[in-house]
Structure formats: C-alpha cells, structure tokens
C-alpha cells in the first residue's frame, strides 16, 4: 500500500464531501435529528399512569385510599367515573390505563373478617405496562392496609409484632431508574451504525456510475489504497457525528457519562472503521448508488434497532434470535457505550466487546479490499 496514493484519494474524497453542502448538511443534521426524535419520544418509564376512580363509598376512608393513589408518583387521577359503562369507555378510548372501583360497603367491611374488596380494572393490551401498573397498585394498597391494621391495633391497645424482614434494595448505575439513561447510550450506538453505513454507501458506486472509475483502473492505484483513502473523510465526519450525539446526550438529556471520555471516543473510532467500511462494501458489491443505499438502510436499520439490545432486551429473545444478535456489531457497541456511560467501566471489563469490534473492523476492511475488483465487467 502506497501512502501517497492513499492520501491522494483521501484528499480528493474530502473535496467531494466539502463541495456537496446538501449531503454534508444531511450527514450532520440527521444524527442530531434522530437523537432528538428517539431521545424524547422513546420513553419506557411508567409513571403518572392515568387512573379513573369510581368511589361508591364516599367515606373518609375511601377518600384516603384514593389520595394514596394520587399522591404517589406513579398515578394521577384522570377522572371520577360513575359506573362501569363510563369506565369501560374511558379505558377503550385510552383516556385511562386503569380504574379503581371502591364498593359502597367499603368502610363497613374494612373492620370485618373478610376484608374490604377493592377492584382494579386494567388495560392489559400493553402487557408490559399493565404488569408494572399492577405492581404499583399492589404496593399502594398493601401500604394502605398495613397502616389501617396498625391504626386498628393501636385503637385496640395491642402491639403488633414488627415486620420480620427489612428489605433494603439499592439500585446501581441508574439510581433513579430513568429509562432515558439506559436508552441514550444505546441510541448513540444505533444512530452511528445507520449513519456510517449511509455515509459511505454512495462513494464507490458513484465512481462506477459516473465513469470516473474506468480511468482509475488504468492507474497504479491499488484496492487497499482506494478503500482506505475513501474512508478518511467519512471517518472524520463520523467522529464529528459521535461528538454531536454525545453532546446532545449531555446537554439535552443530562445522561451522566461516568466512564472515560477518551475510551468512549476510542471505541467509537474502532466501531466507525467497521461500520463505515461496511457501507463501502455495499457500494463495492452493488456498483449502483440506489441499490447500495437501500442495502445500507435495510442491513443496518432493522438489525440495529431490533437486535442490538438497544430497546428490546436480548436475554428475553428466543435462543436462535439471541445467537443471531451476536452477528450484529451494533450489539457490542451498544453494550460498550452503556458500560462506559452508566457503569463507568474500563477496558478491563469491556475487553470482550472491544475486541469483537476490532475483529468486525478487520474483517470488513479485508473483505472490502478483496471484493473490490480493479476491472470492468
């Protein structure tokens, strides 16, 4: 490989990029736009669940139970209803996700042997959310009945035995358990996968389509020089995109970066080499700009979003699909970024993922150089 020829290709490719303001603007605006869109829209937190209340009892006790719900950060009372028909309609329309029904004999039965029945109706169409809401409702009602029990015991002058178990959970890495902290690092990885492949998917096919490849074939230029030279400007552009994404995570979404920034950008660089060259490989194989961009979109977007573990946890996928995710480089970059961002993990912990990214880069670069034939067909 001749450095001078590589550099010549890098320089002329940089001029192409610099003189195409529309593509350049797109290359910079698109990742930021995707960050905003997915960063704000994609929330997995379940709080402020709208709850309908039908309080048929209307006693201080029933009102206290309702206040326990509305007072928690998980629920807000989204309307008082006066019957099952109304409740059914609000759930069907999606105005509320759940409804609390307190029967008229609630207060009377509180002291009784069988306990006072309280009904919770749940919209189970989104099973995940329903499960979470059910869990919240159970905690609220358990606390309420515990307190009522204590009060009754105090009134009767008996001492209740203390709770046998003192449960002290501590959440690590994402103490407030905000889904944003989990989503943003993964989002950066997925966005970079898609953008990188798109950036380079045109570059080789364009030369074939515009007739500039034929004279190049007749020069001493080698495939490795062409591939690596073309990579240079897009690598710089890709690193700029990473910087923009990280800045957006920091400034707009306040995601804490606990690990080393140098490690983050270092790993991003390794990933970019592979992902950019993958786009170029599509361009080399397709020899048509149209086909190459389509290949880049389909081959990075869908696996990037579905199989990288960015939103959908890999451990809950069927085993064959889990195996397939191992072939998705975005998967390793997602877990690398999460490790660096939230866990502050260093290279000693992330060495496995890091070396797989290096392997990905080496394989794709090697394949691109091999696949590029310096001949017409």
């Amino acid at each position, binding site marked *: 490989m*001749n450095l*001078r*020829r590589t*550099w*010549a290709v890098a*320089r*002329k490719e940089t*001029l*192409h990029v610099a*003189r*195409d303001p529309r593509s350049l603007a797109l290359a910079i605006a698109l990742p930021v736009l995707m960050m905003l869109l997915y960063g704000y829209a994609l929330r997995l937190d379940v709080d402020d669940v709208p709850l309908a209340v039908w309080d048929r009892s209307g006693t201080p006790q029933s009102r206290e139970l309702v206040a326990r719900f509305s007072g928690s950060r998980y629920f807000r009372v989204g309307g008082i209803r006066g019957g099952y028909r109304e409740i059914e309609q609000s759930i069907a329309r999606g105005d509320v996700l759940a409804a609390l029904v307190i029967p008229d004999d609630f207060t009377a039965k509180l002291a009784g042997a069988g306990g006072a029945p309280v009904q919770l109706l749940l919209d189970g169409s989104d099973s995940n959310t329903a499960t979470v809401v059910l869990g919240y409702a159970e905690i609220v009602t358990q606390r309420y009945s515990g307190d009522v029990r204590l009060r009754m015991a105090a009134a009767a002058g008996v001492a209740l035995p203390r709770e046998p178990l003192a449960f002290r959970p501590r959440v690590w890495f994402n103490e407030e358990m905000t889904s944003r902290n989990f989503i943003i690092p993964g989002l950066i990885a997925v966005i970079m996968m898609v953008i990188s492949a798109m950036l380079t998917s045109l570059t080789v096919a364009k030369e074939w389509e*515009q*007739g*500039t*490849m*034929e*004279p*190049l*074939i*007749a*020069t*001493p*230029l080698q495939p490795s020089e062409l591939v690596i030279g073309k990579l240079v400007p897009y690598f710089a552009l890709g690193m700029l995109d990473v910087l923009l994404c990280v800045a957006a995570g920091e400034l707009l979404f306040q995601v804490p970066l606990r690990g080393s920034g140098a490690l983050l950008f270092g790993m991003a660089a390794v990933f970019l080499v592979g992902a950019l060259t993958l786009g170029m490989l599509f361009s080399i194989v397709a020899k048509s700009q149209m086909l190459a961009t389509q290949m880049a979109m389909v081959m990075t977007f869908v696996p990037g979003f579905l199989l990288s573990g960015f939103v959908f946890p890999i451990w809950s996928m069927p085993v064959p699909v889990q195996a397939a995710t191992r072939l998705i480089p975005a998967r390793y970059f997602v877990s690398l970024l999460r490790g660096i961002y939230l866990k502050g993990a260093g290279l000693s912990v992330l060495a496995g993922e890091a070396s797989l990214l290096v392997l990905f880069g080496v394989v794709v670069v090697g394949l691109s150089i091999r696949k590029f034939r*310096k*001949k*017409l*067909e």
Partner: protein
Amino acid sequence: METIRAVDLSRRFGETVAVDRLNLSVEEGELFGLVGSDGAGKTTTMRLLSGVLDPTGGEAFVLGRPVRSEAAAIHREIGYMSQRFGLYADLTVQENIDFYADLYGVSGKARTERVAELLAFSGLAPFRDRPAGNLSGGMKQKLGLSCALIHTPRVLLLDEPTNGVDPVSRRDFWRILYRLLREKVTIFVSTAYLDEAERFRRLAFLHEGRLLAMGTPDALKAALPGVVVEALSDAPRQAAVRLRGALGESSPVGILADRVRALVRGPGDAADRVNAALSGATFPCGEARVVEPTLEDVFVGMLSARDGTAP
C-alpha cells in the same frame, strides 16, 4: 520494437461477441488508428489493450508484457483516456491534475515542470481553478489527456478522444498528439470519424468486432478494388438512383452535397460508364471524372464488398 500486440484477442459479453479474434501490432512511436462505426468494438478493444477489461480469449501485450497478468506493471507505463469523460466534475482543473500526479507518484521539480508544460500546451492554464464540470467539451478532453500524460507515459491509449469536440478543438488536440510523437510516444487512438483517419500512420478498420483491413492510408487506398468517380448534378438524389440502377449492387453510390460519388467496379472505363448512365437523364449532369479515393471510400467499399450491398 513492437509496443502493442494483440493475438487472437476476443471478448464476448454473454452471447454477443464484441471483439472477435483480433490480431494487430503497433510499432514504437507510431500513431495508430482504430477506425470503425459505433458498436464495432472499438471501446472494448481499447479496454482490453489497457487492461481495464479482461479478454475472454486470446491475449494482448503492451511493452512486451502480457496485459492480463501484468496489468499493474503496465498501468505504470501507459496513459489511458476512456471514451466517457472520467474526471471529477466538482474538482478544479488543477485538483484533477494533482490527483493523477499523486496516483502516478510524480513529484518535486519534475512535477512542477510537467504540470506547467501540460497546462501550457493544452491551453488550460487560464482555467486551472475552474471546476472540470464547467469546461467545454474540447477543454474536458484536453484535461483528460493532460491527466493521462502527467507521468510521461511511453504508450498512450485514447478512446474516441475527439468525439463530440468542435473542429477547432479537434485540430488543437491533434497538434498535441503530433508533439508527443516527436517524443517517441506510441499513440493508439480509436475514432469513428473517417476524415480523421487520414492522420494516422497506420490504421485498422474494425467492423462488428472483426478486423476488416489494416495498413497505411495510402496502402489501403491502393488496395481499393474499383475506381472512384464523381459527377456534378443538379439533382444528385435522382442521379444516385439512376447510377445504382446502371452500375449494380457491387458499386456503392453516395451523395456529397451537389455531387454523386460512386465506387465503380467491374470492367470498362469507369468514367465512361457513369457518363453513359447519366446521359439519358432529364436533369443536367456534369462530366464524370475519376477522383482520388478517400478512406471513407475504402471503408464503404469494404463494407459493400463484405455484405454484398451498398450501405
């Protein structure tokens, strides 16, 4: 010394045979022309000789090396200009030249001198900062030539370099090629323009992928079977119809502005036969006279002899 040689060189694309067992050789320092109409296989031949396309049969040699197996070595020695403009429209004249200079590893003082020389003799110096896409057709071709010449190649392969170029620029272009000949560069040019073919030292006629004839322009003209006769006419179209009827299918007849032109074959005095054919016409015709054949006559004659009909 033999610079370019094709031995049974063939290329097929699926069922189509683009170049069929081509044999030719070009001497060092020669200006050699590959002449033929569109679709004759000129571009495929140029690509095979320059090593940008692999043959499906036979072999090409450039500077004594087999093109297929030693393409890398050959690419350092040759300059190739493809038929389609192959430079970067968004790069300036200077940037395009610089890029090719880097690819060929031309550097230092040699580079400065070479670039200045190429810009001067191509007349591109005033346009060095203009994007290549904004150049006129002739200027584009001169830029393409400059890029192909940046490393002072010993062999130059030009695929229809004057196609779509205005006559003045074409003259400039040829002037540049003649200059290169003085430096012992071997130049292999393809063209569809028969008037340009007179400029070649030797040429080969290509038709449907096959070599029809090869030689110097004079030799090819001398070998023409038949005599070219011209007659002025007020109604050249009708005169041509009459002549075709009188001379038969073996003698192609054409119209040239206010004249009819026929390649007369067969026994008897050619001019007399034309005069006889035109004498009974209702429209006035001039005296027929024998003229020097052009390469166009040769080409047309060969095609008609081959196909048995006038084109």
